[in-house]
């Protein structure tokens, strides 16, 4: 019993230290991005940095709470937690508060809370629960559809609340499903669709069709033994071309202007200099400012609280989605590469731990955590540096905001708890 008790508290300290580093460094950057004039009171909750410090304080309470539950609790209550989260999302349509055009917040007094941040870990739990069920087989269409429904419900609800960025995060579960046995063909299809979409937008339908035809033809000649009928290949080509056409149509008519412009800027589609100048003032403004801030940091940065663009508040939303530009300006390449490496280590560590789990539930959940963190990390930092189109999602543990910080903390520490319990799983 003694051995067992000891092992119960065997948490993975590497994960916890990486978490603490990121949260702590995040706080310093939020302080920098949000302070006006001299900072007199670090606990002043009328200031963003004061509030964030309070959120971090509450996070410690939350962690203790999460770790004190039995590990089994999360598996047993996964469905209920998911249900509550979905209800909270649905409730937004009635009680929700609109901020910046997205109806994603509940207002409680002066506080606001964003249920979509909590829906992520709830969905991860539900997916883990369903996939780890003995009767589930990810190779079957039936289970694929069911598990797709689990992620589709929150994604749809969030999309309807006008928060397209948070919707994209649910694509992270593709990695989980693939790990748990989804056929390879899905991966190939997914990659092909991404390539087709980008090609169609960048080079137009004709060139896309030619490239697709060449690719399909080379597959045909490569597969000498199981070629099948030419008709099959013709159908694939037809589908590809119609998909490209669909993407083009969707881009031109389905997207809102600002979304369209973001993509246009990313792929450099706009050639009209006058319109480009207008975009630089609107959709591209944040990105240009953020890139300049990062770039101006140089190798070692301008120093903590010394960033001139940060102090001048040149980058809008710098304390939330664009917090990474503060790191870039004030801490330079040293700081930014530290953050990137820390995230990569954290995700790899989680993956490593997940693979080591004895229960499938824990493994699937761990994979979910890693995938969600990965998608956030990739999209946020990629966007701030102009590598991918602008999508408004926060940088985990870093960006300002109570809901976000707590959502990610819960997500991570449930896994830390599950992991600490693996010795008891048998």
């Amino acid at each position, binding site marked *: 019993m003694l051995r067992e008790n000891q092992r119960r508290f065997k948490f993975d300290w590497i994960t916890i230290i990486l978490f603490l580093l990121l949260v702590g460094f995040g706080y310093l950057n939020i302080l920098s991005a949000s302070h006006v*004039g001299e900072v007199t009171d670090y606990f002043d909750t009328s200031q963003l940095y004061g509030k964030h410090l309070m959120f971090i304080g509450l996070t410690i309470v939350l962690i203790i709470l999460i770790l004190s539950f039995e590990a089994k609790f999360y598996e047993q209550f996964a469905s209920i937690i998911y249900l509550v989260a979905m209800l909270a999302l649905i409730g937004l349509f009635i009680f929700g508060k609109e901020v910046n055009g997205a109806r994603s917040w509940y207002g409680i007094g002066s506080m606001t809370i964003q249920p979509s941040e909590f829906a992520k870990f709830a969905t991860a739990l539900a997916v883990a629960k369903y996939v780890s069920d003995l009767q589930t087989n990810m190779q079957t269409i039936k289970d694929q559809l069911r598990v797709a429904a689990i992620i589709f419900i929150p994604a749809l609800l969030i999309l309807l609340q006008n928060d397209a960025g948070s919707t994209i995060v649910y694509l992270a579960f593709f*990695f989980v499903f*693939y*790990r748990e*046995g989804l056929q390879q063909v899905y*991966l190939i299809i997914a990659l092909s669709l991404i390539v087709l979409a980008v090609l169609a937008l960048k080079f137009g339908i004709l060139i896309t069709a030619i490239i697709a035809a060449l690719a399909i033809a080379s597959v045909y000649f490569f597969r000498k033994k199981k070629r099948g009928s030419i008709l099959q290949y013709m159908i694939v080509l037809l589908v590809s071309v119609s998909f490209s056409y669909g993407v083009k149509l969707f881009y031109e008519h389905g997207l809102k202007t600002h979304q369209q412009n973001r993509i246009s800027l990313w792929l450099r589609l706009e050639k009209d200099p006058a319109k480009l*100048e*207008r975009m630089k*003032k609107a959709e591209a403004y944040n990105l240009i*400012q953020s*890139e*300049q801030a*990062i*770039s*101006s*940091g*140089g*190798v070692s940065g*301008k120093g903590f609280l*010394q960033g*001139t*663009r940060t*102090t*001048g*508040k*040149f*980058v*809008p939303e710098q304390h939330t989605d664009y917090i990474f530009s503060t790191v*870039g300006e004030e801490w*330079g*390449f040293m700081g*930014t*590469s530290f953050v*990137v*490496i820390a*995230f*990569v280590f954290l*995700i*790899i560590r989680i*993956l490593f731990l997940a*693979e080591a789990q004895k229960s499938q539930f824990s493994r699937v959940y761990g*994979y979910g955590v*890693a*995938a969600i963190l*990965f998608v956030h*990390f*990739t999209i946020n*930092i*990629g966007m701030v*540096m102009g*590598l991918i189109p602008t999508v408004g999602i926060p940088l985990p543990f870093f960006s300002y905001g109570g809901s976000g910080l707590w959502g990610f903390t819960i997500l991570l520490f449930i896994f830390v708890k599950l992991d600490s319990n693996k010795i008891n799983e048998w």
Partner: protein
Amino acid sequence: MRKLLLLTTVILVGLVFIARLFYLQVYNNSAYDIFEDTAIRKEFNYPKRGYVYDRNGKLLVANQPSYDVMVIPREVSPLDSLELNEFCQLLKITQDEYYTKLARAKNYSPRLPSPFVPQLSKKDYAVLQEKMRKFEGFYIQKRSLRSYQTTIGANVLGDLGEVNRNIIKNDAYYTLGDLIGKQGIEKTYEKTLRGVKGIKFIQKDRFNKNIGPFKEGTLDTLPQPGKDVTITIDSDLQAYGELLMKHKRGGIVAIDPSSGEILAMVTGPSYNPNLLVGRERNKNFSRLFLDKVNKPTFDRGLQAQYPPGSPFKVINALIGLQEGVVETDDKVTCRMGYYYGSRKLTGCHHHRSPVDMNAGIAQSCNAYFVNVYRRIIDKYDDAGVGMNTWANHAKSFGLGNFLNNDLSVGQPGRIPDGDYYDRAYGDNRWGSTYIVSNAIGQGEVEATPIQLANMAAAIGNRGYYYTPHIIKNIEGDTIPKKYKTPNYTTIDKRHFEPVVQGMFDVYNEGTAKSLRVPGIDICGKTGTAENFVRIDSVKTQLTDHSIFVAFAPKDNPKIAIAVFVENGYWGSRFAGRMASLMIEKHINGEITRTDLENWILTHSLENEYKKPYSGEPFKINGQTSLQVIDNYATEENHPVENQNTSAIKL
């Protein structure tokens, strides 16, 4: 395999990110430079430029505020048509001008400030100032422009102009749009007058608003005001000299021999210094500078090198005495010229003969000085050694080299030495007879009016001079020591008295008899210099230049002066009259010789100057008649301002 998809993707993304960060922050980034940081506004605070006073404490140059609209092209955000329209109306420019100006600024540098619309009126400034914040990348820079309290002395005072790119490249102090002294005292005392500009670093926000000092202002500097200077010019004498020089071309330089202070420095034709202030400067400066006929920007008192003519004879007299080759009472016979065997080396005019030194100077006898000069050169076996000895004596009077003073322009003149003729004729293939023209200040000898005035000062001082200079006093500073130490000539003091007496007799009984001023003992020397130009590649002689060099009084002189009038014919005709008037004005403060004054004011040489450009054959010297004009002393306009002569290439 399935386990590896996410893992490899994560590592791949991490590597791509680090690569991108490396590109943004290391590869694509130079060291942090606050002047490059668009988030920091750099506000220059220009100090008051020092005032300029004349020797009597009269204010000559003061300041007036001016407002430039500056642009930093990289920070300009495109204006929509409404904003553009408003901005152009405020600045009083067309939209086309807006784009050309912006393109020009961008072409210079996208990140450095360039002047966009310089020197707004106060009223335009007041309206614009309130709306300036709307136009990102533009700001208003306050500067001070010069305000001349006088219309004289353009060549003395000089002017300010915008720095050019070359200056910026060589001196990091200046940025585009800064003003710098371009001529005259503004140029030589630029650093004293300008002070040091202060700079303020201000943290901006993204709305282009100031949100406070950067780093609590620890990097800011305060402007240091420029120092006031007093110059040695007597503005009354300067004004009088400019009046006399009207409708003539030439230069007057007057020096106080007891200190080397320049009392007046006149060049004609001149211009009103106010023409070179503000927005009109460039236009006016080009007009003045491109006027190749009148050359108003050419300071004839300092830059015009001519054969000095007869005044140079006194130097030969002094050298002859010093070398012991001549006594004051040695007599030379003049047969209307100097004969070498049967060959006439130089002509002379009609005067009594034979002459001793006194008469030689007073009558300006060519034969006498050729004789003396040949004795000097032939004293040594080697003509080269003789020539070098002679040149060293001459150079000790400040001739043949730059005076090394505080004037922005100058010319070295020329005193040939042995090497010079070795180069011209071949080693030792020449003798004193080859070069006798030097004896009478023609030939290879050349000097500027200021050198001649200085020479007169050295003679008046009996053997030394102070480097002629224009600075009298610098606020809170001392003037360089070199202006306080005398430069001694190589001639012993005792040799000067007979020469001075000869120059005195020039007035008493010699070539300037008619120019005597009652009550003042003037010592002088007339001069006449032949001159030639090329017209359609034919060497053509023009009317001689009129030269006069003098100092007064005879003992303890207060003024040494050189007057030079182009094509004025003989020395006492124009230059002598003007020198006498200047001396009287300086010493007595008023003019008793109103006949002289009236003559000068009513005689113009402009017809004479038009001749080479007329394209027709013309007569010179004795065959010309003078142009008499109404007394134009009351005329307001300067000659340069109301004529449209275009440049003609000679």
